[in-house]
């Protein structure tokens, strides 16, 4: 059995959620990876260094420059006959592309895989993480997206015992159809780590009261080297963009330290962060459900506690 993992990359490095997808694929047998884009040789070289990767397929062409779903799905379908499993991280890209691939192969995809039980048996969360379903697929080929928080990512480099870099080989695919046209991208410009890859995350909820008050979190995030997140309530209230959202309908994170500020702890939010190693909650409502999952809880007004926290971190 051989798996093909579609990698998310930034043209030179492989993103951490994709390294988790590689970790999941290793449980299924031999692993090949696909790097698609335009001008992606550096990413291909980085992919070849990942532990457990036996072969790197590279599709380097203008049609893949913006990694639109239509040409990427067509490419994966053309490669599918050689593979038992097609995987990607459950990132915006993986969620966009893999179901399209599955439909073209007449397969029911299994998304947000949290555990591999067997070649066709997987565990995935349902109902915003309130239940875990173990499902068996009757399809002859599996199309999966992998929940990054559930699998430790493979390192970026091989150990001394793991042999040389994987072979890199170009694949055809320049003629894939691409009916859609990329217009523009507006990526948040912050020097902070990406939410799904950050070792520390500080999130604000409705208790932050305004967009301006999120600057209070920025100050602490900078001191901790943390990413800033938010609850769905804060996103709904328009305090921050949706890509800040941690939760079942947003991003799933599992950092070493998760700090929840002014977040009550709705089920849908807990589903996105409850696998964090250490959870801290600061909330003035001592009955807030967030305290039921927090390792350390502080009942306090966040507008007093945040400046104190910034000062305390400054001191140490």
């Amino acid at each position, binding site marked *: 059995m051989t798996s093909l993992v579609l990698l998310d990359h930034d043209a030179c490095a492989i993103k951490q959620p994709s390294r988790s997808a590689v970790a999941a694929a290793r449980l299924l047998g031999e692993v090949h990876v696909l790097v698609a884009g335009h001008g992606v040789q550096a990413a291909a070289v980085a992919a070849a260094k990942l532990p457990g990767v036996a072969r790197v397929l590279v599709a380097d062409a203008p049609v893949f420059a913006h990694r639109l779903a239509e040409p990427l799905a067509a490419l994966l379908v053309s490669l599918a006959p050689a593979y038992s499993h097609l995987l990607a991280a459950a990132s*915006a890209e993986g969620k966009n592309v893999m179901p399209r691939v599955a*439909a073209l192969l007449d397969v029911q995809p299994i998304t947000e895989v949290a555990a591999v039980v067997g070649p066709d048996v997987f565990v995935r969360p349902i109902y915003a993480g309130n239940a875990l379903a173990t499902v068996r697929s009757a399809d002859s080929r599996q199309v999966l997206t992998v929940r990054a928080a559930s699998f430790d990512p493979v390192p970026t480099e091989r150990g001394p015992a793991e042999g040389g870099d994987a072979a890199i080989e170009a694949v055809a695919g320049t003629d894939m159809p691409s009916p859609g046209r990329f217009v523009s991208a507006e990526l948040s410009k912050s020097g902070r780590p990406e939410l799904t890859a950050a070792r520390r995350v500080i999130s604000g909820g409705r208790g932050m009261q305004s967009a301006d008050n999120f600057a209070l979190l920025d100050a602490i995030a900078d001191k901790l080297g943390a990413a800033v997140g938010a609850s769905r309530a804060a996103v709904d209230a328009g305090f921050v*963009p949706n890509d800040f959202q941690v939760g079942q309908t947003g991003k799933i994170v599992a950092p070493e330290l998760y700090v929840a500020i002014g977040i009550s702890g709705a089920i849908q939010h807990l589903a996105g962060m409850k696998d964090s190693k250490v959870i801290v909650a600061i909330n003035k409502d001592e009955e807030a459900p967030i305290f039921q999952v927090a390792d350390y809880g502080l009942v306090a007004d966040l507008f007093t506690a945040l400046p104190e926290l910034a000062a305390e971190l400054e001191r140490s």
Partner: protein
Amino acid sequence: MKILVPVKRVVDYNVKARVKSDGTGVETAGVKMSMNPFDEIAVEEAVRLKEKGVATEVVAVSMGIAACAETIRTALAMGADRGILVETDVELQPLAVAKLLKALVEREQPLLVIAGKQAIDDDLGATGQMLAALLGWPQGTFASKLEVEGGSATVTREVDGGMETLALPLPAVITADLRLNEPRYASLPNIMRARKKPIETVKPADLGVDPTPRLTVLKVVEPPRRQAGKKVGSVAELVAKLKTEAKVI
């Protein structure tokens, strides 16, 4: 231009899902059911396009047991013009739903399908993309902004780290993210009016689709519970504990 909007009947988002004691699934008997919240956003977007004069008709489709007609009524009360119920007792999974929708699209010939990005029960997030694939149409998933003009849809999408904008030739499939709009509440007169709007009922066999599920649920369990920790008395104590006890800063 006609718009087709698939709507799913799910356990209301305010209800805490409870795993059945026999581990076969989540309790749905006697539980409040509602339209999937992302589908409400999709209906709202379609109705707004009609109000702007871009769309001429909005058709709401739901699939499943007869009670799914209630979900269609909700869409009709929000402003959809008519409904189609694909009635079956078979548990429908996204591949089957996408095939059934494809058959309806071929019959109804809409230029746009607007779906929710995921259903809040199975959380699979697959139907829109799968329908686009089967139709050979482009897809604009996780849309936070949609403009339709001159045979093209300009879609702003939520992606990791920000947003991107795509121009898609119509016909196309769009899936709605949270920030696309804020769905309206149906007014009482509109709820009354919706009762008179037509709902057609068809069976999967009428559409030539075998809806047999591909996935079998072996078991459903509650996730492991996280233990509540301790309360600290001050910020200073918190920072000290994170340093010396948890060793995470």
